[in-house]
């Protein structure tokens, strides 16, 4: 006998490799007897196996045809390699499936996941409703909306969930392109939902009501210690509150004086902290007394002056104001 067992084993391996695109069960079924068969062939006549039977790949092609295991069109070598890779990945996934199962207390991960499928159907319906809502230009959130109406959105949600469950109960029987379409849709939905959830998460974590945040131009006012607001007539405004365009309180400076009880008050957004440190005028109550005297002296001049610069009734506060109106 000139053919060794090793030669037979090599030949069988190459035949099996050439049949890698077949389902594993079919391939095993086809080749389980091949070593014995080749041993019989080898025992009958001289020469190597390749001399007598041709290249293993040719043999595999003939075997495939004769056994009726042809996979439609003659696959290209790329196709064959792809299917081989897919088969290998599939085998590894199955191994992983079985290995990780005990961690969950099940024989395999898929056994753990199978009862959860209806839950996935519900989630899928919800995601589909969200997608419809977003595609129609509604603001993204966790509830679908239609025309800004939450009620219509809830109807949409219910419809989508029912459709998803119906599809889930029927999808087991699907094959061919409907199945592929379903998988494609699922992938798209998952991609969308990831984007949507990231969006919602950003909205949730950026707290728009956080106080004392995002005060504009804070750096430019680092040297500001207190803020004094004067009204049109130059009177100091007490307990003024400052806000920016977003309604966010503006906080500047810090209290440097003691209040009535002898302690430094905590910073707040009520200005000024220390009215007695006002740079331009004595505190507001003192300005009230001299007012009448001014209004009496230039009785005729007052109307003309007020017409050009200041409204009439405000003349009484003349002495403290930096405006030139009373002097004319």
């Amino acid at each position, binding site marked *: *006998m000139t053919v060794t067992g090793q030669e037979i084993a090599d030949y069988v391996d190459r035949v099996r490799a050439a049949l890698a695109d077949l389902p594993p069960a079919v391939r095993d*079924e*086809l080749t389980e*007897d*091949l070593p*014995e*068969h080749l*041993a*019989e*062939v*080898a*025992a*009958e006549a001289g020469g190597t196996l390749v001399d*007598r*039977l*041709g290249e293993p790949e*040719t*043999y*595999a*092609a*003939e*075997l*495939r*045809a*004769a*056994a*009726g295991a042809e996979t439609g069109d003659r696959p290209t070598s790329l196709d064959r390699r792809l299917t081989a890779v897919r088969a290998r990945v599939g085998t590894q996934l199955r191994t992983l499936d079985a290995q990780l199962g005990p961690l969950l207390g099940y024989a395999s991960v898929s056994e753990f996941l199978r009862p959860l499928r209806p839950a996935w159907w519900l989630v899928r319906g919800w995601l589909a409703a969200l997608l419809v809502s977003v595609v129609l230009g509604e603001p993204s959130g966790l509830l679908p909306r239609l025309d800004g109406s939450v009620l219509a959105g809830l109807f949409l949600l219910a419809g989508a969930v029912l459709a998803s469950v119906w599809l889930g109960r029927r999808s087991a029987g699907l094959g061919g392109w409907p199945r592929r379409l379903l998988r494609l849709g699922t992938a798209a939905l998952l991609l969308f939902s990831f984007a949507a959830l990231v969006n919602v998460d950003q909205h949730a974590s950026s707290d728009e009501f956080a106080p004392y945040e995002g005060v504009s131009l804070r750096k430019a006012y680092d040297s500001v210690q207190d803020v004094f607001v004067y009204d049109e007539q130059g009177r100091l405004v007490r307990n003024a509150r400052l806000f920016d365009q977003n309604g966010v309180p503006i906080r500047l400076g810090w209290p440097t004086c003691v209040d009535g009880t002898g302690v430094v008050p905590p910073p707040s957004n009520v200005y000024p902290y220390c009215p007695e440190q006002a740079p331009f005028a004595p505190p507001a109550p003192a300005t009230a007394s001299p007012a009448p005297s001014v209004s009496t002296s230039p009785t005729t001049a007052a109307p003309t002056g007020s017409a050009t610069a200041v409204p009439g009734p405000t003349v009484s506060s003349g002495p403290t104001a930096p405006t030139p109106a009373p002097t004319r």
Partner: protein
Amino acid sequence: MDTTQLLKGVLDLAVLAVLSEEDGYGYDILRRLREAGLEEVGDASVYGTLRRLFAAGLLTTYVVPSESGPHRKYYALNAAGRDQLARSGKTWRSFASTMNALLDDRGMAA
């Protein structure tokens, strides 16, 4: 005309017919087919056909130990296989006679 194309269609029938006279192992069946005149039949075709017929439930197998060489796996027809042989045989005969008549009518030499 390429006989390998024709063989594809009738190899089942040929293998069943060969096995109906006597059980056989793979290489033995191939040799008997070649002796019967089907010289272009390949080993892989016979082996593949045997696997398929076996999977279809038309054949049974048994192993015969051999002292000099490797063990041999013998194939035998079962009842389903004999049924199949009878039906396929009839189909082939009617098909062949149709083809013969078709060619005869047009004066083709045999």
